[in-house]
């Protein structure tokens, strides 16, 4: 029995231990040994105005992206779960097609739409709405649009499972007692999908924090987020110790966030 347990469970665990856990310890070692032993890099990461401004910008953008993505996902999920059969099919396609398309293609789509010689600026100038191209990309605006676009499908799944488990009879009861449609939605339906909203927010926020590709392409090096900063510190202006220290801080922050959530989820008995 013991042998078979090892035989089944061990390969993946050993593989991840060797290829992930041990190397992560190596990254931690970099953070306290490069360029010199000590906790200097952590001090830099938490006091340097440049790093702090990047961290602050990351948290701000991720919070904004989370609110926008979850709100938009909520609307479209509502139609997916509660619409008529044709509507459901159409919404499903609108969610699944972007979901399966790679992050690079989607970021490029935004460039095609928003850049100086992209569709919006070309048409806008031809029609004469504006004479100078608008700066829609290579700034925070473009980063937020691209991230929201990428993350909406991920927010849909927890929201959909929450909406499907809403007891229809409660809505009927509310209507039977004379509540308006708006009131049923805001005071009955939305509170009943609270866990889904919370789960979607957490998922989107955690994903957004580690985001690298979309901000790097749509931010054009101007609005650098934490993930891109790590990349820059490893490959562009090498300061491996700092890059490693920021990585460790990020990992700890996300671990704490998830641990707090689990505790909260247990506390509310869900």
């Amino acid at each position: 029995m013991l042998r078979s347990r090892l035989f089944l469970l061990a390969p993946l665990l050993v593989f991840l231990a060797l290829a992930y856990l041990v190397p992560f310890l190596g990254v931690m070692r970099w953070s306290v040994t490069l360029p010199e032993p000590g906790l200097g890099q952590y001090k830099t990461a938490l006091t340097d105005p440049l790093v702090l401004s990047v961290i602050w910008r990351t948290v701000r953008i991720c919070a904004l992206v989370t609110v926008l993505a979850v709100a938009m996902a909520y609307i479209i999920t509502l139609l997916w779960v509660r619409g008529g059969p044709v509507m459901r099919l159409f919404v499903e396609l609108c969610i699944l097609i972007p979901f399966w398309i790679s992050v690079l293609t989607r970021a490029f789509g935004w460039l095609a739409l928003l850049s100086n010689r992209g569709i919006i600026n070309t048409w806008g100038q031809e029609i004469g709405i504006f004479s100078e191209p608008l700066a829609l990309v290579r700034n925070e605006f473009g980063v937020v649009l691209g991230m929201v676009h990428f993350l909406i499908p991920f927010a849909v799944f927890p929201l959909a499972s929450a909406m499907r488990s809403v007891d229809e009879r409660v809505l009927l009861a509310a209507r039977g007692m004379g509540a308006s449609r708006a009131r049923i939605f805001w005071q009955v339906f939305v509170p009943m999908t609270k866990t889904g909203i919370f789960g979607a927010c957490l998922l989107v926020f955690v994903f957004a924090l580690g985001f690298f590709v979309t901000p790097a392409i749509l931010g054009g090096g101007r609005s650098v987020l934490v993930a891109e900063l790590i990349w820059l510190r490893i490959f562009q202006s090498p300061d491996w110790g700092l890059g490693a220290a920021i990585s460790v801080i990020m990992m700890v922050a996300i671990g704490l966030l998830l641990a707090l959530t689990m505790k909260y989820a247990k506390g509310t008995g869900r």
Partner: protein
Amino acid sequence: MITLKPGLLATILAALVAVFLLMPLIAVVPVSFTPGRNLSMAGDEWSLRHYRALIDNPAWGKGVWLSIRIGLVASLFSTALAAAFALGLWMLQPKFAGLYMGIAMLPMVAPPVVSALTLYFFLTSLSQWNGVIGYDTFFGVALAHSVMVAPFAVVLITVALSQVDRRIDLAARSMGAGLMTRVFRIIMPNIRFGMIAALFLTFVLSWEEIGVTLFITSVNAVTLPRMMWMGLRDNIDPAIAAISVVLIAIVVAVVLIKTAVQVRQGQKRQG
């Protein structure tokens, strides 16, 4: 039975979200036909030169072929490990199941950039020992992708196993079936759709993986996403638009076929 249908306002707002989701995918099309060398709109004159560039420049074909091979290796390897792991948890229900699951989920939960740096450390360390599995090599990338996609396979297979009736396994065991018989003749046939889904998802995730790939490759193991990244960073190469249109067309075709099959099956069941 859904009694309260979404109202007009909700439908209009959802339509706007749908437009938002599809807009950037459609925007790629007119750009791909531009006669220009830079990102611009195809005006009166449409050209296929960027599609021709995909064929004429052997680097694109090489990138596609490399991505397919890496995807196959990573998909088979990670799904095999994940299947054994999920089966182990399901059959044995060990004491520290939560801890094991936590370790297995780590690459999925951790920020991609931290995983990327970790795998960069792993592969550069390996490179000091050998030239086959390491930084910027085929097997190095396949190994790193396996780490990143394995958690997704574990999730899918675990979900599939949770639908299996334990009593069939108990029945087989009580009739003297060994471990191998139980796994391959009893349980596997019952989770085959989960296994196929895991193989497919891990392949797709590896095929489009870029966050980690950027850290662990430079000039040799240039996968398709890596190739696209190089064309996107500084001067935007419209060949990216052409390859994007091809990739979008494939996804749209697959999703439409899958949906059509589902709709037909649904009709059959009703009729």
